[in-house]
Every structure is written in C-alpha cells, then in structure tokens.
C-alpha cells in the first residue's frame, strides 16, 4: 500500500512491519509487495519453476501474508485444460538439521498445519535449508499436509528433496488428485443462478 505526499514528492511505502518514505518519485500507482520476509516464498517459487526433463512444470503466485496458512498458489504449466493446482506453505531456516534424526529445523504450529490440511485441494509444506551467500544453492524439502494433526511440527522430515524427480512426482500427484475429483462434471452439472 502506498500513500503519496503530493507536496513533497514523497511516497510512503508500507510493508508488513513498517512504513517508510521513498524520495523523488511519484509511486502513486505502485504496490510494495516484497521485503526480506518474502524471500523464502520467492526462493521456493524459483525452485518449483525449475526445468525438468519434462520441461517447466509449475508456475506460481505468491500469496504470502495476504492469506493465512498459504504462501504459494502453484499451477501446473501447460496449455491443456483443466488448470490443476496446489497450495504451499514455506518455512526456511539457517539453523540446519537436528542431530538425532537429521530433520530440518523448521517449526509449524498445529493450528497452521490443520488449516493447511483443510483446504479443498492438495497442500504441501516446503522447508528450505537456506544458504545465505547463494540462496540458489539452498536445499528444499517437501511434505504433503493432509489429515488431522494433534501436534505441531517441531522439525521437518528430509526424505523428499524438492529436486527434478520430485517436481515430476509432485506434478503427477497434483494431476492425479484433480483427475479423481470430477471437478468439471460437478461444475457443469450444478445449477448456477449467475449463468450467462
């Protein structure tokens, strides 16, 4: 959100935690969207859009702070219809792994897990072992979030690295989910009073 101080040619930029002026330009129509807090989500979006031997598989939109529990909407790339998609929550850490189980030290509260699981679509957690000097060499892991959770997550399993093979698996899994729902039949067979 921005506010323009027209007399002084200063725009005020609002981020999640602060507001500050930008000097010298009219930013009236601009929208500030990303600060340091959005870095993990942006990095996860880069990982999801990596090329595989089956081409690029996911295109993403960052939701970040705009909606609870979901950070990324990820849609399978392609000209084919239907447009299949999944929801993703992202957590990152520079603390590395637990000594005993070699799990990634990211935490997700129970309420957040359950909220993510309740979305009527495939939902996943991506955890990132963040490398400060070169974020693109960070390692990301993925876990499906579904069912009911009685506890929060104190660390994340590292069985599934978000690599080329698992990107293909993820695409297949998301497609399988939507193929099993008969969504288009439901869409076409239910009544809408708003039909054209």
């Amino acid at each position: 959100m921005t506010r323009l101080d027209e007399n002084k040619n200063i725009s005020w930029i609002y981020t999640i935690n602060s507001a500050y002026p930008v000097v010298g330009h009219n930013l009236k129509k601009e929208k500030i969207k990303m600060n340091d807090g959005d870095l993990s989500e942006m990095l996860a979006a880069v990982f999801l859009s990596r090329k595989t031997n089956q081409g690029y598989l996911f295109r993403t939109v960052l939701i970040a702070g705009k909606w609870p529990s979901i950070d990324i909407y990820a849609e399978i790339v392609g000209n084919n219809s239907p447009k299949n998609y999944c929801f993703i929550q992202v957590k990152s850490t520079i603390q590395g792994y637990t000594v005993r189980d070699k799990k990634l030290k990211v935490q997700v509260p129970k309420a957040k897990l359950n909220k993510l699981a309740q979305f009527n679509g495939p939902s996943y957690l991506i955890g990132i072992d963040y490398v400060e000097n070169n974020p693109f060499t960070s390692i990301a892991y993925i876990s499906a979030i579904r069912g009911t959770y009685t506890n929060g997550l104190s660390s994340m399993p590292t069985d599934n690295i978000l690599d080329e093979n698992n990107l293909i698996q993820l695409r297949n899994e998301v497609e399988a989910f939507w193929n099993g729902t008969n969504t288009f039949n439901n869409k076409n067979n239910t009544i809408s009073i708003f039909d054209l």
Partner: protein
Amino acid sequence: MRNEKQFQGWRSEQIVKVFLLSSGLFDVTESYSNSDKGVDFIAIYKERNNRRFDIEVKATKYSKSEIQRKYPQKKYNSNSPTMQFYVNYDKETGYFRLTNTNYTSELNKMVRENFIYEVKNYAQQYL
C-alpha cells in the same frame, strides 16, 4: 510449451528478486506506474533514504562477451539509477550492471559479495 519464452522471462525476474532481497539492501515492488515503460520492476534501496532503482531483466544464456556485444551499454534519461540483469534462467546465474545518465559499471557476475560492493560503491558516489 507455447509460452516458453514468456515463462523464461518470468522465471528470470523471480531469480533477480531473490537475488536482490537476499542482498539485504533492497525491497522490491511487483508493479509500477505507466510512466515506467521498459522497467520490469522497482527496487528500493533501504540504506539511502529508500532511493529507487529501476530494474531491467533480460532472460539470456549468452556468455559475458556475448552480452557485451548484443546488449551494449545505453544511456538512460530516467532520474533513477537502473540495474540491468542478464539471467541464465536455467542455471540461476547471470550478470548485472549499474547505470545512470553519467555512469555505467562493468558487467559483473551475479554474486552476492560483488553486488553488495558495487551497490555501496555506487551509492557513495551518486546517492
């Protein structure tokens, strides 16, 4: 994919946004006003009165010498400094240069330390 080029352009922009945010020097905006034609997005330099940098991103797999040949330095009339990025969208690497009406930097590798040094050096001289 029909829109593969468009996808590569989009992905290159995401890579540059991660690069800028991870430097700790900038916030970035997703959209801009109509007067900013040719600018892909805007970065806000946090250390100097939140000054604005225009960001241009080219998706390319050219080498450094090829970039220098194909994308020669050009002068900008904008009041804002411009950062040009040439991104290899598959390798997540690339080059950048900083430019304003009076100055154009060398083409530098997209490496965090290089970038922070270049920006701070530029800020000292021009901001």
